[in-house]
């Protein structure tokens, strides 16, 4: 058997066998599944996506009626998932930064309090927290008829938070355009001035110029464009508050739970990142006469950021995946909508394939964006 002992031939053999086995398993599963489905007269295919959904989704970022298609219902689920994960990632990052820096404080009370915060969040399952927050909201706050009016028009009850809503009569598009133009202008200004500083070595208040560049288009639009808005103030009807903007307790509990869990992770990442920068860097910067804040900004953070980005990516991916726990407290995210569809159509394989595919696709997208950002801040070795 000299042929078998040839390392290259053996390598090919192993690969062919491995691929063959995987294909065999896939084929066996596929054929049994289709045989089972055919035998039991279970419908297959994605034709159901065009059928009328017929069920109500209470919370939706895009317009949706029960008369819309199942495909649109899935889209509603996706937007709900994205909405809650984006907000949780945003709030959680800000909160986590504060907590992480608090943990490094030399004040023992503050650092221990922050440690307790992080430990309490990391050692108890997220699902348990979600159920706990939800129970707290619906059992501690009063029913909607005795809603607490915190500010005029702002009501808090166990049906959530209701605030006045702004309705744009006209000028909305102009304002959005101005906002986008402002952001772009601010970035451009900061960049040009930053380059200039490197060339000339002169200090200029870059932040101030950028802020002006951002505000200018907005102010101009407000002054010259025809903007009119009406306020939709909630009113207590026979049962509930009608009108206004509703933050439902399901959404609030989920957002709270996810935000806190992100913040605990971000806090640990930030702490580890700052601590990983060697002490000599602090000392060198101090020896150069840099103040503490400038040392942090110019020396420590650029180095810490490189350590922070990869685990931060993982945290964002995790919160995105954890938003699927929404199903436990009744927030209509992608999994919950797919689940309803699965029950209505009986087509489990297709429904699960859709939501797994969407998660996979969006996970890869998040990874790509974060990797791109990571590559930008990465150390360029010369």
């Amino acid at each position, binding site marked *: 058997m000299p042929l078998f002992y040839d390392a290259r031939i053996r390598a090919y053999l192993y690969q062919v066998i491995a691929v063959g086995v995987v294909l065999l398993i896939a084929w066996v599963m596929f054929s049994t599944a289709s045989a089972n489905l055919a035998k039991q007269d279970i419908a297959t295919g994605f034709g159901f996506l065009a059928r009328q959904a017929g*069920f109500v989704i209470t919370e939706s970022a895009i317009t949706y009626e029960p008369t819309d298609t199942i495909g649109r219902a899935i889209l509603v689920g996706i937007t709900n998932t994205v909405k809650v994960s984006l907000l949780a990632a945003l709030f959680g990052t800000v909160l986590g930064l504060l907590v992480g820096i608090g943990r490094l404080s030399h004040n023992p009370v503050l650092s221990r309090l922050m440690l307790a915060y992080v430990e309490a969040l990391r050692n108890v399952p997220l699902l348990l927290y979600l159920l706990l927050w939800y129970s707290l909201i619906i059992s501690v706050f009063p029913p*909607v008829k005795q809603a607490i009016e915190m500010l005029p028009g702002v009501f808090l009850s*166990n049906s959530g938070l209701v605030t006045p809503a702004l309705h744009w009569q006209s000028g909305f598009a102009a304002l959005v355009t101005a906002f986008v133009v402002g952001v772009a202008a601010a970035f451009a200004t900061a960049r040009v001035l930053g380059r200039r500083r490197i060339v000339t070595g002169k200090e200029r208040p870059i932040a101030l110029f950028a802020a002006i560049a951002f505000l200018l288009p907005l102010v101009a639009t407000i002054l010259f464009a025809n903007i009119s808005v009406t306020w939709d103030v909630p009113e207590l009807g026979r*049962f509930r508050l009608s009108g206004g903007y509703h933050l439902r307790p399901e959404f609030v509990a989920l957002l709270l739970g996810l935000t806190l869990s992100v913040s605990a992770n971000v806090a640990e990442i930030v702490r580890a990142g700052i601590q990983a920068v060697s002490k000599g860097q602090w000392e060198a910067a101090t020896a150069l006469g840099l103040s503490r804040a400038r040392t942090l900004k110019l020396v420590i953070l650029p180095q810490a950021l490189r350590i922070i980005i990869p685990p931060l990516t993982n945290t964002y991916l995790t919160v995105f995946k954890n938003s699927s726990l929404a199903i436990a407290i009744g927030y209509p995210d992608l999994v919950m909508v797919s689940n309803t569809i699965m029950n209505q159509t009986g087509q489990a394989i297709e429904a699960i394939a859709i939501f797994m595919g969407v998660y996979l696709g969006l996970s890869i997208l998040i990874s790509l964006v974060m990797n791109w950002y990571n590559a930008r801040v990465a150390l360029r070795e010369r």
Partner: protein
Amino acid sequence: MNSRILQLCATVAGIAVGLVAATTANAATTLETVKARGKLICGVSMSTPGFATADAKGHMEGFDVDVCRAVAAAVFGDPEKVDFVLTNINTRFQALQSGEIDMLSRQTTMTFSRETSLGLDFGPTVFYDGQGLMVPKSLGVNSAKELTDAAICTLPGTTTAQNLSDFFRSIGGKFELVVFENPDENRNAFFSGRCEAISSDRSDLASIRAVANNPDDYVVLPETISKEPLAPAVRQNDSNWRDIVSWSAWMLMAAEERGITQANVDEMAKSEDPEIQRMLGVSEELGKMLNLDNKWGYNVIKGVGNYGEVFERNLGTKTALGLTRGPNTRWSEGGLLYAPPFR
């Protein structure tokens, strides 16, 4: 490393081949599987008082449970030879399709699309139900039509939510739907005042009302917004098994028509009535035709009683649910229960 992977692959391949082989070898009918196992496996809910709950020591009781016990009695002559599996709303049909359970008895509504596209067959309707709404008395509502703009708690993926949106569309109103995956959470949200109303089958509402701290604080509204015939279900294309489940259920109804009870079944076996003789296996061989013991009917009634007894024991006016028979009474008394003749 390669040798290890190779080993792993070989094992997996072995299992795969084994599975394929098993496919061809294993074409047993449900009855054979159940008999070989020595126990019936029945999918129920586990937290619906009156239909299926466990007592403090884990013994299951309820209307749905008794339907399972009747089938177990028909097959084994012993109503206790049944294991109950918790099925939730998501997994109940898949549990049946996959063979994890032998029959599903879980307040499941028989509908056209379920019967045709979910790979299952329904037995006879054992409980005629309809969807209703329940509200706290303090709300001062007397009709579902007044519930425009209210929040309504319900379970997902059932026909319930669809019926509600149809109903409110027909009266031109809107409502806020609050959906919970878990019946316990659903109930809790309603009791905590998260929703003004809760909607489900009327029997289920009675069950929810029974567990309230003070049941008298809640009232079921008069409207019935749908037809919900609740029936046991079995896998499609196993007609012998379907016959067993169906005729066990009809046996309960026929026994009530004929006045056979758990207590008097031994005396009734001496009856001269030819149909009673056939039912109880005294004459002819109905059991054999189902591939069961000829005394299967006797065993069913001896095991769980007749339909009336099952109903009164679990749902009737003396229980916490306090349901009246309503449409679930004999056809001869104006109800909908009508067992085909045993001949």
